[in-house]
């Protein structure tokens, strides 16, 4: 076995990282093509509020002190996701408003909970920026459960998600019940964001959802290829980032995101050098 993996906490981090490196880009493809890249940011901030709430409650109650804050984070995140879909209906012509509303509500709540809990501790710092030493075995199993749910959902709902992302009208004409599919998709996204935060941190979760996609859509032929390439880029970044983080003693979230940025730049250069592929006219 690699020396890197001789400790249990590193195995935990590695396994979780590999799962998150698959999950975040898969959902990210649908989010980016629907032009909702910022939704991941909004949901990660509301997740932080959930985690802060759990840390605060842990001061008073042994139940919450013993609970993994990830669950409270997920509950807040899913609630936020459903709320975003409702807000988008209220502000039909300003759909993007839902995102800053949820984002600021999340930060506001977080700050209040944190100050009530007498300020920052290292635990919270780990959630903000990601830490590979903070991943517990129970986190690995939670993320694994989410992985199974998400892969089943995307596999069986691929057609529907694809057509709704491309053209909602066509989806409705095909008799697709768009509302519940979109709500379910948001809820699943919220779960993945909560699951990813241990590795990349709340402030960087959206990077893992959007940067691999930003790189892949420049070079992919077709939607399926965009998904595969996004996953490939996500995995390369997570694995390389965790190695660098361990051997150079850097924050894992930062190294992963920088790996993503490097891949993104490479894909932009690649496209520049291979040139535009616009085909001839009719």
């Amino acid at each position, binding site marked *: 076995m690699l020396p890197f993996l001789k400790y249990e906490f590193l195995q935990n981090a590695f396994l979780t990282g590999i799962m998150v490196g698959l999950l975040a880009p898969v959902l990210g493809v649908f989010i980016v*093509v629907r*032009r909702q890249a910022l939704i991941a940011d909004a949901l990660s901030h509301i997740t932080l509020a959930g985690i802060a709430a759990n840390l605060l409650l842990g001061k008073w109650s042994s139940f919450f002190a013993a609970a993994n804050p990830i669950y409270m984070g997920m509950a807040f995140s899913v609630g936020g996701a459903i709320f975003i879909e409702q807000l988008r209906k209220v502000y039909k012509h300003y759909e993007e408003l839902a995102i800053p509303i949820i984002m600021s509500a999340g930060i506001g709540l977080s700050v209040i909970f944190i100050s009530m809990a007498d300020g920052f501790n290292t635990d919270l710092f780990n959630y903000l920026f990601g830490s590979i030493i903070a991943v517990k075995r129970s986190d690995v199993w939670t993320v694994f459960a989410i992985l199974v749910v998400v892969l089943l959902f995307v596999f*069986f709902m691929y*057609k*529907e998600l*694809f*057509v709704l*992302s*491309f*053209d909602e*009208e*066509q*989806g*409705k*004409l*095909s*008799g*697709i019940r768009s509302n519940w599919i979109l709500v379910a998709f948001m809820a699943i996204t919220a779960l993945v964001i909560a699951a990813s935060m241990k590795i990349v941190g709340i402030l960087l979760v959206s990077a893992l959802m959007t940067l691999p996609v930003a790189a*892949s*859509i420049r070079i*992919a*032929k*077709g*939607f*399926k*290829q*965009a998904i595969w390439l996004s996953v490939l880029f996500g995995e390369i970044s997570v694995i390389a980032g965790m190695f660098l983080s361990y051997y150079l003693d850097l924050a894992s979230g930062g190294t992963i995101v920088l790996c993503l940025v490097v891949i993104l730049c490479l894909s932009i250069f690649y496209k520049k050098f291979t040139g535009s*592929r*616009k*085909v*001839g*006219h*009719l």
Partner: protein
Amino acid sequence: MNNNIGSIAIRVDDLSFHYGDKNVLQHVTMEIKKGSFLGLVGPNGSGKSTLIKCILGLQKPQEGQVYLFGEKVNKFNDWDKVGYVSQKANSFNTAFPATAFEVVSMGLFGKVGLFRFLKASDKNKVWEALRSVKMDQYAYQNIGELSGGQQQRIFIARALVSDPELLILDEPTVGVDTESSDSFYKMLKELHRENNMTLVLVTHDVGVMTNYVTDVACLNKQIHFHGNTKEFEESSSENMSAFYGHHVHVLHHDHGHE
């Protein structure tokens, strides 16, 4: 409920639609016969697209009713009988990473159903639809890399892939150069003749359209004229000026005639 129901593809019954206090459609009543090729014309803001959306059940009118193949539109289930190419097809996200093949296959999703996948026979249908619009050699190109006219053909192929009996096109040639739009109209005429399909073409391009369609309807919040192309041409000068308000004359572009 109606004795000639078998021959009517679309029946619009006293339909009114308004956004807030702005009237878009007022008491529109019309029947579109099966096998006809209707050109629906009208100036900007005349409610053409809204009427189409009401016909497709994408918008709910405040008054009136739409029947598709004799069935109330909100009860209608045979959506694979209906192909639709929206105006938005001109302004979709061209950076969307989907191949022409993937876009066309969307047209089958309603037929295939939930939790199911495209079979080999479905894929053959996609190829057939691509061939029918002469775009099969571009199947694996991303949709955004094609020209406007080519994209439009892909959207037609998507509408055709489920073998619809009724094809509705909303301003399909906007943003497409004249040469492409001519060959596009010819293709529609062929589709109409060979498959006995009912076509509804929304356009403001009155002159070119009359070379291809069998019937014309003029809409400006209300239906001002609905009849066959010959009647339309005979009455068109007075009709059109009353209708558009001023000095409109119908230009004929005869290069489309065979």
